[in-house]
């Protein structure tokens, strides 16, 4: 029977958000009048405070030696939870018991000073992460070897490349010897080789009976590193601690929340406008709407249209252009190329484009949507949809192509003859 390393009981944390009451339009006269009114009623400004619960009644127990992933969308409370566990912020309610020395790694290279040399920063960062001077001294050579920056040890880190910087920072962190290691997102940086090395190192850590708590957007990294996971949603436990695969499955389902992009009221569009896009959705294989895509999943792009002029009834093509966040063009999907132009339309309907295995890797992307009739542009919306893609198991092998060696994945198979 293993012992509990982390016990979290009914932990809640709230923040106060300041709201500025907005009117549909304000005039200087109103502003002055309001100020004067507030002055008399003793209020300062027209701010209202709203209490926001970042964490609400979170409870779970993690046993010694377990590697637990915390999964959830942005704003689910993952980072707040880690900050509470690391004692950076204090919960409003509840109780947490941590058994053993805790090290938390919420950022790579916390406290690194650009003017100091690599050597000096190893000592500084080590002590910030909770190592004693003698501990750092005894591990110094190991840290340097791990970081692969021996040659630049006496150069100020402001002259380092970002890769070297991250390697050095992670090398220090990787040599912490806590009983509980709390890690947030830090693997998102660094090159692929090094990421692998870090995950290996962290697995070693837990192999020695240490407990690891890990937050990442990288589902593959979580799948690779953790054996259990908790899903958070809106500050609450959405799916209790369970085996990694069932938790991931639950999360994927919950990602598919309502996410319809309303495009009807977009003004920045071009074209004749007699046949218009009104909304856009991503659908998964069960025809459920989803907001983020996972690399390798089956996805349908559903474009709802509205026909204003019923005479436009032949040779209709719909195009979806995919761009990266940096503006790099990836591809154009159109029924003109992969299928046939549509002919018969009712006044309302949808074009649906199906992709069996979504090939783009994790990142932010944009879509331009267009509708042509007889090669006349009816509607064209640039940056109609901005969406995120998360890493997934494209090849079904449990392995993920490292970040530096990919931007698009292609199905392939290998034989040795």
């Amino acid at each position, binding site marked *: 029977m293993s012992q509990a390393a982390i016990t979290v009981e009914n932990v809640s944390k709230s923040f106060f958000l300041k709201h500025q009451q907005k009117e549909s339009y304000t005039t200087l006269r109103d502003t002055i009048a309001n100020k004067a009114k507030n002055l008399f009623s003793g209020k300062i400004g027209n701010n209202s405070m709203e209490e926001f619960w970042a964490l609400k009644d979170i409870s779970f127990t993690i046993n010694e030696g377990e590697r637990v992933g915390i999964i959830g969308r942005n704003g689910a409370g993952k980072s707040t939870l880690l900050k509470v566990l*690391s004692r*950076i*912020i*204090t919960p409003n309610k509840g*109780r947490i*018991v941590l058994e053993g020395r805790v090290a938390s790694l*919420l950022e790579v290279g916390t406290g690194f000073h650009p*003017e100091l040399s690599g050597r000096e920063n190893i000592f500084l960062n080590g002590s910030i992460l909770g190592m004693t001077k003698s501990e750092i001294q005894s591990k110094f050579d190991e840290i340097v070897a791990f970081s692969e920056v021996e040659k630049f040890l006496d150069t100020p880190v402001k002259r380092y490349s970002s890769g070297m910087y991250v390697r050095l920072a992670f090398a220090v962190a990787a040599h912490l010897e806590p009983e509980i290691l709390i890690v947030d997102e830090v693997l998102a940086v660094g090159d692929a080789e090094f990421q692998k090395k870090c995950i290996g190192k962290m697995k070693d850590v837990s192999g020695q009976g240490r407990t690891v708590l890990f937050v990442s957007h990288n589902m593959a990294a979580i799948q690779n590193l953790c054996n259990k996971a908790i899903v958070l949603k809106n500050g609450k436990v959405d799916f209790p601690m369970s085996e990694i695969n069932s938790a991931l499955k639950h999360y994927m389902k919950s990602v598919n929340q309502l996410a319809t992009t309303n495009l009807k009221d977009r003004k920045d569009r071009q074209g004749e406008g007699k046949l218009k896009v009104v909304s856009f959705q991503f659908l998964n294989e069960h025809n459920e709407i989803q907001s983020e895509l996972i690399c390798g999943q089956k996805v349908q792009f559903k474009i709802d249209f509205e026909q204003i002029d019923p005479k436009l009834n032949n040779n209709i093509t719909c195009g979806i252009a995919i761009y990266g966040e940096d503006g790099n063009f990836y591809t154009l999907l159109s029924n003109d190329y992969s299928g046939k132009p549509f002919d018969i339309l009712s006044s309302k309907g949808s074009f649906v484009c199906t992709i069996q295995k979504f090939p783009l890797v994790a990142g932010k992307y944009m879509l331009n949507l267009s509708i042509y009739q007889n090669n006349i542009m009816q509607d064209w919306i640039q940056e109609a949809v901005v969406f995120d893609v998360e890493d997934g198991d494209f090849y079904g092998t449990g392995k993920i192509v490292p970040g530096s060696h990919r931007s698009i994945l292609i199905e392939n198979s290998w034989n040795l003859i």
Partner: protein
Amino acid sequence: MIKQRTIIEPGLEDKNYWKDIWKFRGLFYFLAWRDILVRYKQTVIGVAWSVFRPLLTIVAMAFIGWLFESNVPEGIPRILMVSAATLPWTFFSSAFSESSNSLITNSNLLTKVYFPRLIIPASTIIVCLIDFLISFVIILLLMAYFQFLPSGNIVFLPLFLILALITSLGSGLLIAALNVKYRDFRYIVPFIVQMGLYISPIAFSSLDIYNNPRIPEILKYLYAINPMVGVIDGFRWSLFGGNSPLHLKGFLISISISLILLFAGIKYFRKTEKSFADTI
């Protein structure tokens, strides 16, 4: 092996506060070490700045004192008299302004790692203390030049240095904690430092105030409320002995203010410390 156990509960951290600070003394040392290393990087004259800056102030203040014919006790060179005030003043003003800003400049640490927050302003003050010790060379050189032998009271000098430390730590903690929430203090601090230069006995001697019949009693007490009056008078008394006597009542007022500042600073700092990461 007995494992360390950490319990996190609202309002619980208080019990082990000072023990925690002791546990994190390594970090305290490294933060001070970092600031010392960084302080004069990429400067041409380097550590000479910590002598040069007070030296210029001394010259200027001595000139003003000479111009307005402020009293100098028998047998003490004016420039030595001014130095004995300028050095502790420079220490206070830099320690006070830097520790007041220290939490803001280290906000990346506050939001990413746990440690007793008191360590940050305290380690900043250590750096200023080292600057002060280096700049003390000025007084030694001046004494050698004028062949001036300090009084036997010099054994008490460390006590007044501690008083200066207490004053800057107390006020620094108070303002640093306030600064996290109300950035107004970023503008108030330079103002306080500038005012302090005029109302502290640097270009003149405290005796000019206390023994001046034209100044009403109430103003004399008001003058003594400035905690640096006690520190500077103490410095002069330990260096020049009976030639620069302490005004006991005023001195006690100054000391009490220093202690009150320390007490209030620590108290307010600890009260707000837990919410620093939320509000910064």
